[in-house]
């Protein structure tokens, strides 16, 4: 008898009688049902304001971009402001491929051991907590999220959700199946040295969001 069979047998021996299959099927068929926090229910302009406030609370920064064609200019401005080299690395996302990057040197592919700045596109944002949702793949390699000293992320305002509830619904509808779904809330941090919180543990030291209206 396998370890699997022995473990499952022990669990079944401890289970209460009843139609357990039906109970599980009912639970899975109607996901949710927990309390809905007020902070997960924002709409419209208030949603946008809350998202930006939450980003700030998570030590991320945010700027608005009125059109996709404006992104290179906005990025160049941020790189200059942060005294970073005029270079960016991103994946094969067609959204980025079609842009004129001007003076910014671009490279494509996954993260490398030293990378001053990387750019990804988020699938969704959550106003509830100021969280970005990224899906790994050739368009947006997962390591770009963790190996850039400064990580820039593009998010369409239309993809901003109130909270987990409408996000999961939208996620299922979009039908993606990436190896990882990465929720990112601010730049990396640790308090393991002397119990004092410091930004830039293993991931980015800074996170900047371009909100595209």
């Amino acid at each position: 008898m396998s370890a699997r069979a022995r473990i499952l047998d022990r669990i079944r021996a401890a289970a209460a009688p009843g139609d357990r299959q039906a109970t599980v099927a009912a639970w899975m068929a109607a996901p949710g049902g927990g309390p809905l926090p007020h902070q997960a229910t924002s709409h419209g302009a208030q949603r946008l304001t809350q998202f930006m406030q939450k980003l700030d609370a998570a030590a991320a920064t945010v700027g608005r971009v009125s059109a996709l064609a404006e992104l290179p200019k906005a990025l160049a401005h941020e790189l200059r402001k942060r005294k970073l080299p005029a270079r960016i690395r991103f994946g094969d996302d067609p959204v980025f491929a079609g842009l004129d990057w001007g003076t910014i040197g671009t490279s494509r592919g996954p993260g490398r051991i030293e990378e001053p700045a990387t750019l990804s596109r988020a699938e969704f944002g959550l106003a509830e907590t100021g969280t970005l949702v990224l899906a790994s793949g050739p368009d947006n390699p997962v390591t770009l999220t963790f190996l850039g000293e400064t990580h820039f992320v593009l998010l369409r305002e239309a993809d901003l959700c109130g909270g987990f509830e409408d996000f999961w619904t939208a996620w299922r509808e979009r039908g993606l199946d990436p190896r990882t779904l990465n929720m990112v809330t601010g730049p990396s941090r640790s308090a393991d040295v002397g119990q004092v919180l410091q930004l830039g543990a293993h991931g980015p030291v800074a996170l900047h969001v371009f909100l595209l209206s």
Partner: protein
Amino acid sequence: MSLHEATTPAFRANARAALDNANLQAALRGSRGNFITKRARAREDLPEFDALRDRARDIKDHVLAHLDLYLEAYEAQVIASGGHVHWAETAEEARAIVLDLCRQAGAKAVNKGKTMISEECGINDFLAENGIAPVETDLGEYIIQLRGEVPSHIIAPAVHVTVPEIEAAFRKAHTHLDPDRDLSDLAALQAEARGVLREKYFQAEVGITGANMLIAETGHSVIVTNEGNGDLTQSLPRMHIVMASLEKIVPTLEDAATILRILGRSATGQEMSVYTTFSRGPRRPGDPDGPEEYHVVLLDNGRSNMLATPFQDMLRCIRCGACMNHCPVYQAVGGHAYGWVYPGPMGAVLTPSLIGVEQGGQLPNASSFCGRCEEVCPVRIPLPGMMRSWREREFEKRLTPAAMRRGLGLWAFAARRPRLYRIAARLGAGLLSRLGSKTGRIASLPFARGWTGERDLPAPQRGGTFMDRWKAARR
């Protein structure tokens, strides 16, 4: 002796040594209160917090009542996504599975994200004995690995280490760096660890992480971190191994959200930790990064035996650490005194369940029964009640020291005879109040030096025992 061997039976001696350890006491003083304040603020900011705790408790209870079905559903999803599930009844089996996988991957070095299950299995020592170098990548775990220690806290593993001790450990280990470098500030220490570990991320053939949750609906494993180390650990090597225990299952993505809403707030006071990552299977065709193989090792190690016992509720635990952050005993002696993987109130209940009351029976005695652990537990585990159950079992199995057994026996004899109890109480209270009549305190008392050696015993009030006064008042 390997690091994961339990020193739980030596709890009393461990605790005494911890109280006398000036460095440890300084580190504990430095962290004390931080976690408590942050959690309290996070709770205030979310009016639905307590309702979410109730919901989380109900989700976990539902899972435990249907655990076999959810495990099967989860396994089917992992396989459908191209991953593999390995079942381990014991720590030994889990070790063998992990070693076998590492050998298949041709691993010389294995990176590790934070996983308490791997501590439970003693993976690091075992891999090292077999010629594979384990590298802890969580900053706190890295610090204690350099010092040859185990975690003293489930989410802040190096909370017992002072800053000068960290500097000393780095200077000793990082001999390739300039010996005259300046490590006088915290940022320099963090930057040095970041630089050293960044290289190691690219060298390992296997990355091992834990899982905060496993989702039955989708086959995702979920990790929650602030540093990003768990993500580099699983994304850069060619094989990702997840080590998780059975009870980490939740049914749906929505249920995972409920747990996430209380986990960060209870642990560090964060609404969301920085990185919450849902992983499913290996890299997809065309993906330029991510592991080529994805394996999940499901560990039982005694948990299935806790089902349908008074200790089943312990399996609701989501490992936030709030109970130890709020525990006066943990805050006085730190985590190492507990002598095995899990410290604090959750460890005091879980340890005897997993390694036996003979080994872990002393830990449930390390409680003042103040009840704060139960008050803050996000999944409402009745920790003090379960500690009481363990004490009863310890007594029944005659594992309690003889003097304590005699004392408890004597008390039980009197407590079952109300008249005798009242006479004894009246005599005792009268004698003590006379002894302390001048100051209201008793500085030294034979048979109670365990108390009076450190502090005065308050003398009982004059005017009789509680029962005497109760009767007088009713008249």
